Every structure is written in C-alpha cells, then in structure tokens.
C-alpha cells in the first residue's frame, strides 16, 4: 500500500504543474499585468510610470512563459511562470499582491472555517444517514413518500434562501442567535450554532435522497434477508449490515471532501460574517490578486489529490476485498 501511496503522490506532481499552468494561462488571458496594476493602484491619477513601477515591484514585469531576451536556460527560467510556481511546491506562498502574507492569512482563516465545516460535516453525516435509513425502514409507506417529497422540496430551494430565512426567523424574529458575526475562543459557539443548523437543513434534501437510494439498493440483497432470518432486529440490520455494505459509495463522496473542509463555504461565511477562507479566493479574483489565486488553486488541487488518496485508503478499511497495489 505504501508503494501505491508514494506512486499516487508522485503522479500529483505533473498534475499540480498542469493545474498551475492552466491557472497562469487562464488568469493572464483575462487580466494583463497592466490591468492588475491599475486595480491595485486605484482609479484616479494612475500614470504609465506608476504602472511600470508596480509591475517591477511585484515581479510582473517578466514574460509569462518564455523570455526571449534571456540566454540559455534562463529563457524558460527567468519567467513569471517559473518564478511564481516553483515556491508553491514547497508550500511557500509568499506575499499577496497587496503585501499580506498568504500562508499567515490561510492559517488565521482556516480555523473559523473549520469550526463551521467540521460540525456540519460530522453531524450532517450522522443525521442524513440516519434519516435515510429511517426512510428505508418505512419504505413504501406514506411516511417514506412524505419524506421523499420533503427531500425533493428541500433540495429544490436555493441555499441562499435557507441562509436568509434562518437569519430572519432564528435571528431577527426569535432573537436566539446573533444574526452575523464571530468571536474567537469560547464565545464562538453562539455564532456557529445558526450557520451549522442552516447548513444542516440546507444539505438534508439531496444527501438523504442520495443515501436512501444507496440503501434501497442494498436492502433487497440476500445478505439482508439472511440477517433478518437470523432474527436480528431491523435497526441492527440497517445500521450494521446495510450501512456497512453501502460504505464504498458513501466514502467516495465523503472522504474526498475531508481535507478540503477548512477551505470553507462562500455563502455561509459571507452572510454570517464568519472570517474564514470561504471568500478568500473569490475576493482575490475580484481584486485580481494573482498571488492569492494561484496559491489557493494550488492548495485546493493538492487537497483534492490528498482526498482521493485517502478515499482509496478508506476503501481498504471498509472492504477487505480491496487491495491497493
């Protein structure tokens, strides 16, 4: 298995290089270094000299992929791509174009994101699976039909609606929680409860329906009939045998997101005023801060690859027939 993991991680290098190449190409297709300079220097009184100065100061005065003026290896080496890419592979993100240190920003903002994402993820997983198993238990009854209709209705509503409705009802009408905001430390709980609740409700529709479909497929299989024939209770059949055998598709969707949990959620964090990483990339795109964009895309890709490797490893844990070679 170790060989497999090492091999997968080595495969990651060209993938990350490719992702980085695409990020560079796409970003500079839309924005030129001059555009970036103008955005950072402001809308008034910007002179060509100021633009040149900004580019020089931030290292955007070099050619993107090929430096015709350089000699030998420097033709490829003395370029924006090489200069800005290499450090990413040792996770040296450097400063953002506005001067702030990116690694420091990530370290600061990941904790509030995680404070919402982790309980949402864990409680959500438990609640959605339990609810789906409950529907399976009552399959074919009116309760099941009502549950499925409810799920379809819930998944048909925009996520933004849950946020605004949650803030309106629990924050504005009932005064249970602060409508938005965040405080670090022990006081954080009262700012986290509402976003976690809203996230849970917003996610229940499609998750429960997805899990229900998985369990329904399992419930008709022979091992379930055998388990029942042994006299096991229905709860034991569902939570031990059906759930256990449906783990592979569940893990496929679940484990891959674990490393990315701290990247946060854009809508939830924006509306609830949580100072997480959710809007960091979007804000950077709007501000044309290429240093942040390339760092976050790189980090996102890296975490996705790690998530896929973890998913593969998790298969071996839940299904002894799977071997990683």
């Amino acid at each position, binding site marked *: 298995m170790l060989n497999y993991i090492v091999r997968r991680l080595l495969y990651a290098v060209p993938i990350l290089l490719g992702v980085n190449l695409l990020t560079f190409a796409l970003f500079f297709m839309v924005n030129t270094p001059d555009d970036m300079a103008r955005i950072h220097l402001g809308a008034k009184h910007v002179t060509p*000299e100021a633009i040149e100065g900004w580019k020089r100061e931030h290292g955007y005065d070099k050619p993107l992929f090929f430096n015709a003026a350089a000699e030998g290896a420097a033709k490829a080496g003395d370029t924006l791509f090489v200069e800005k890419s290499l450090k990413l592979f040792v996770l040296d993100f450097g400063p953002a174009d506005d001067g702030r240190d990116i690694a420091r920003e990530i370290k600061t903002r990941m904790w509030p994101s995680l404070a919402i994402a982790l309980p949402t993820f864990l409680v959500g997983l438990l609640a959605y699976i339990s609810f789906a198993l409950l529907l399976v238990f009552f399959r074919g009854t009116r309760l099941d039909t009502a549950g499925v209709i409810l799920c379809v209705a819930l998944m048909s509503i925009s996520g933004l609606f849950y946020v605004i409705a949650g803030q309106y009802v629990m924050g504005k009408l009932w*005064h249970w929680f602060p*409508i938005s905001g965040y405080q670090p430390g022990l006081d954080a709980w*009262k700012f986290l409860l509402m976003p976690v609740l809203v996230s849970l409700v917003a996610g229940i529709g499609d998750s429960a329906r997805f899990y229900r479909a998985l369990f329904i497929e399992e419930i008709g299989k022979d091992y379930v009939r055998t388990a029942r024939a042994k006299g096991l209770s229905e709860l034991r059949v569902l939570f031990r045998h059906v759930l256990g055998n449906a783990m592979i598709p569940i893990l496929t969707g679940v484990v891959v997101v674990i490393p990315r949990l701290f990247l946060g959620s854009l809508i939830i964090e924006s509306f609830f005023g949580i100072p997480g990483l959710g809007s960091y990339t979007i804000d950077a795109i709007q501000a044309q801060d290429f240093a942040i964009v390339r760092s976050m895309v790189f980090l996102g890709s890296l975490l996705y690859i790690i998530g896929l490797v973890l998913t593969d490893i998790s298969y071996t844990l839940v299904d002894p027939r799977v071997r990683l070679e």
Partner: protein
Amino acid sequence: MAEGPVAEQDKVAKIAFAILAACVLAACSQPVNSPYPAAEAGGSVLYSAFGERPKHLDPARSYSENEYVFLGNIYEPPLQYHYLKRPYELEPQTAAGMPTVRYFDAAGRELPADADSAAIALSEYEIRIKPGIRYQPHPCFARDAAGKPRYIPMRPEELADIDHFQDFSETGSRELTADDYVYQIRRLAHPRVQSPILGLMSDYIVGLKDLAKALAEAAKAQSKEDYLDINAFDFEGAYVVDRHTYRVRLKGKYPQFVYWLAMPFFAPVPEEAERFYRQPGMAAKNFSLDWQPVGTGAYYLAENEPNRVMRLERNPNYREDFYPAEGAPGDREAGLLADAGKRLPMVDRVVYSLEKEDVPYWNKFLQGYYDASGITSDSFDQAIRMNADGQPDLTPDMRERGIQLATAARPTLSYMGFNMLDPVVGGLSEPARKLRQALSIAIDYEEFISIFLNGRGLLGQGPIPPGIFGYREGIEGVNPVVFRVDCGTGVFPPLSKGGRGDLATTAAAQAALKSPPPPLYERGESRAAGDCAKFKRRPLEEAKKLLAEAGYPNGRDARTGQPLTLYFDTAASGPEAKSRMDWFRKQFAKLDIQLVVRATDYNRFQDKMRKGSAQIFEWGWNADYPDPENFLFLLYGPHRKVGTGGENAANYQNPEFDRLFERMKDMDNSPQRQAVIDQMVNIAREDAPWIFAFHPKSFGLRHGWVKNVKPNLMSHNLLKYRRVDPVARAAYQAKWNRPVLWPVAVTAALLAAMIGPAVATYRRRQKATAHA
C-alpha cells in the same frame, strides 16, 4: 489552625459559585443575540461596519473611501474641513494657522499675492504646526534604559517570539515635528510605497519626479529587504524651517494645493515607523505601515483583523481639541452645537465589524447592534416614504424606534459620456452636437432616478455638483439645452426662435457665452412670464427635430436610409445592470435609435476607454476636494484619456473651454470666478460631451442615541465629534431583543408527536416480522 478538607471543598464551591454568578450576570448584561463581548456592554463605544476589507492603510498609498474611514481618524494632515460649516471650509488641524503662500518669478524674485498667474514660476507654502502634539503609543518609539530604540534594530530570534502586534510589550511616543511632514512628502516618491498621486504631484512639487527616479535607481541596486533611506537623497520640494515649520515648493501657481493638505497623503509619518517596519521578517508577519498605522489622530488602530473586526481606541496622547462652537444656520436648533467647546473625542472606542451582506447589516441595525446604517434598495420601502411634498421621510415604524434620517447631496457627478473622437457622436460639428443634444433631451434621468435610485439623486444640470463653488442653485442652475421653465402655460417656444444651435455657432452667440444670458429662457422671452419656479424636460418633439437636423430624421441616416445604431459600452453586470441597460435601450428607442449594449469586464472596458474605441459610456467622479477645478478638469482638452492617459474620458477638446479653464483654475472664489465658470458650464452644455445624469444623494439612518451627526462628505475624521448614550442603547437593545421561547416548546412537541408514532410503528413492524 489549618483548614480541613470540608473547609477546602466549601471554598472551592464558593469560588465556583462566584464564577458561575459572574458568568450569568455577564450573560444577562446584554441580550443573548448580542454579537459583542459582554465586557463591552454599556461602554462608550460606537458600533459600525465595513463591507470590504481595506487594502492599504499607508497614508501615502491609500486612496479609497473605505480606507479613509479608518485613516482619517488616525492620521492628521495639517488642515481639515470645518465639521459644521457649509459650504465646506478648510481650517487648521495640526497646523497653528492656515498656510501662508509666497510667489516667485523665474528669476527667484518674490511677487505680490495678486500677481498674474503667468508670471508665477514658483509657489512656496509655509505651514507651521502646533507644538506639543504627540504620537499614539507605538513600539517604534519605545526606548530602552539607555535611551536607544528598543526594537530598532530587532534581532531575528526576538522577532520570532512575536506573533501579534500586541506582543510588542513596550511602546513609546514622541512629539510631532515638521520633519515628519516633510518625510511623508518624500515617501510619495518611495518606489516601494507606490503612491497613486506620485504622477500628479510630480507635476507640481519641485523635484519630486527627480527624487522618484533617484529612489527607483537606488531601490534597484539593493535587496528588497534593505532599508532605503529616502532622507539621504536631495529634494528641493519640501524642507524643514524649524522644529515646527516646514515649506513646500510648487511649480507655478496651484491654489488647489491647500485642499491636498487636508488629505492623508500629506499627513505626518515618523521615520522611526518606516525603519521599524522595514526590518527583515516584519513583512512576513504582516507588520507594515500599510497595515499598522502610526498617527497623532484622535484614535489609533488597536485591533486590525479585517476579516472580522477593526477596533479603534481613543489615543491617550491626543492633543487638546474641542468641539466647534459655531456652525451653519440651523445647526444650533438641530442640537449640533450642544457639545460646543467640549473636549474631543467623545467616544472611547469604535468597533467596525465586517459585514459583507446588506441583509444582516440592516437587521442588526434594526436590533440596535449598529448605531448607523445606509439604506439599500431592498430596505428603502421599509425605511422611507415620500411625504406630500415629495420629500423623503421616515416610515412610522422607523419613527417609533427613534431612528433619524440625514440626507445630503454627494459631491459626485454621474454622467453618460460621448467619445468625442467617435465619427458618429463625437466632434464639435453642428450635426454631432445636435445629435448629442437630442439624446440629452430624450434620456429621461428623472425617471432613472425614480426607478433605479428610489429618488435618491439630484438631476444633473452641469458638470459641478451641489456644495461646490460654481454650482448654481434652483432655477438659475437649470440646463437650458435640456429643460424649460414650466410656467404652467404648457407653451414652449419653438426651437427656431433663437435655437440652441444658433447660440453655439454664431460669433454673436460665442460672445454671448462669455457673458451668459439668463440660462433658462429662450431669447426674446420675458422673465416676467410668471413666477416660474419649476422646470420641465423639453418635449420629445424638440429632440426629434434636433435629430433630424443632425441628419437622422426618424432615427435613419438621411444619406443612406439605414437606421442609426449607437453603441453603449459598460462594465456593469448582474440583474440590476440588465434592467438598467433595457431602460437605456428604451430611452434611445424613443428617437428610433437602436442602442447596442456592449457589456464587457472592467479591464476590457478600461482598455477601450484608453484607446478611444468606446462610443457611449457611463462614468462618474467623486470630488477629491470642494473646488470646481476638480470637476471642470475632466473636460479639459490636455487631460483627455486617449494619448495622454488623463481623466477626460470623453476626450472633449474645445479651445475656448480650455482657455477659460486655465484662467479659472488659478482664481480665488469670487464673482469673477463664478462668471468664468458660468461660461464654461454653458459651453459644456451646448457641446454636450456628457449627458449630466445625476448627483447621488446620501441617505443615512442613525439611532437616537447617537449624537452630533451631520453629513460631511469631504471630511474623514468625523468619529471624534460623535457622542453616544450607552444607557439608552442598552435599554433599547434589551427591549428589541427579548428571546421568543414558544417555538422551542412547539418544536419539542412536534418532535415528540413524530417520534412517538415512529417508535410505535417500529415496534409494531418488529412484532409483525417476528410473527411472519
């Protein structure tokens, strides 16, 4: 006697009870949904929000409203705007008096104050600052027992232990000196600071361009980590006379320079701060002058977490500063002079929370957790209704809450511009001018203001916004090219009677422009036609007639018969922009002109503007300072965007306008200056390179517990004048935020109602399975 285990347990229990009681009391001291720490409850704190994190807090670099909210209260330029007086009036801030200016000719001979501008080769401003002003406490001033700087230089291992700015255990302060002001002027040329006004100021401040070049060369030759000593370079543009006096030397005459002296670009920065922050390892910890300001203002930035909160605290070293004792008419009656003569600042702390979305901001304002709020389109109907006079007023709900409304026309102009280099809509030819005039009449900005701004705008009549010298109030200021007086007769003189075209083309009319006629009445029409206090947009028929005279009868090219198609470039996007573009299409369609909207991203839009490939566009300008020069220069030919990169986005160039501008910019505010401005405005109205759209009105709401609020759209150091009544605020917060508990009981009952039958069903099915 030693205490036994029981006594020990009793003691622990007492302590635990005390802690619990303290927690309960703290929790009860403010509503459960309060977003603020309990320790802050009842304090002299002002609560506000910011929607976007500031990018720069370096006064030499920052040039954005959302950054000036903070910087204006931390840094002190020598001058400020009087808080209450209108029109806006400059007064000394840290300066002991207003700057004195001396003029010199090319030979260095001093000239009298009223010397002709053309003879002035050099202006020298002398600014004397008040002695005894001290900086906020800051580690850059900290000194050890030997009197040496405590943190300059700083060993790497020492810096390694410091993670937050508050970890610097020692701070110090020192007196503000003239050196700090001169140092900041030098910083404008610092290659690593990248001041946005370097280009502009290089045209005025003697030697600034050369200093910038020399510094850029020196910066190239050293590592980025190395300290660049900008004081070591020659610079004639600013120098220190004595500890509290400095002089700034400008090329020629530039009377608007005094307004710049009220902006953070000219605030003092101590050299120690630059030396402190430029040490290796500081930037990696986000310790920089761009992030942790060092000022003499009423507040200092105590907490800078722009992802969550920015907290300003009262500067303990703040100088003696007092609330103004005089204001504008009506201020006393409005209670704005109740605190006259009181020591500033009045609030101890100002907490700005990050609030990216409008909905939570508005709801928290209604709960009393923000002291003031703007009004978005979504909340407009909830907050404002129009009274019988068509004036905005608060809704009964807002009145009941004691909320108060303050409105003010912003010193801003939004306009629709025509690219004067465009072969169809551009140029000063008669047909092109008539085409632009026809469009100026057809596009109904009254409707625009009503639909898209909820009435929060003042119709544009010329390039100068209200509150700026040169703006004419009421009927005298109405643009006669687009509007007519409405005397209630409904009769409009036909265009052929002394039409506008004649006015602009004949020599007699050019002469008339220099001494403008009463602007609103057609020639030959008597002012005594009635008490005409209202004006009305000219009828569409006039626009159609102008269009026909321009060569496009019924919206078709008279030569080719092809329909006239015009192109509108915009960077606006989203559903609201779409509605606006649809509205523009309809306005053009009134003249049977097809409008093609070319929506693009901001970069491409800017690129088109620079290259002059846009045809029609929307643009706007916020006043840097309250002088007409700051708006009329937007139409000054040598400042055109194409070729020079200036701010004249329409690329308008009229020699007469340019000649008048050069005369006007150096004049003091006087009837003579007003006369020149009138001529310039009339030329711009006739040539119509812009459609003067509107001046936005600012609508601000505040709770009754916030005192001393008067809109001042030029100043940024307003926090020191504010006063709050924390007791009233706490009472209202408690009243408005009582938790509603019945939903908890209902939810519990519902859950029980669901779980009970589910359990019963489960048991029944289990039994059924067993029996099967």
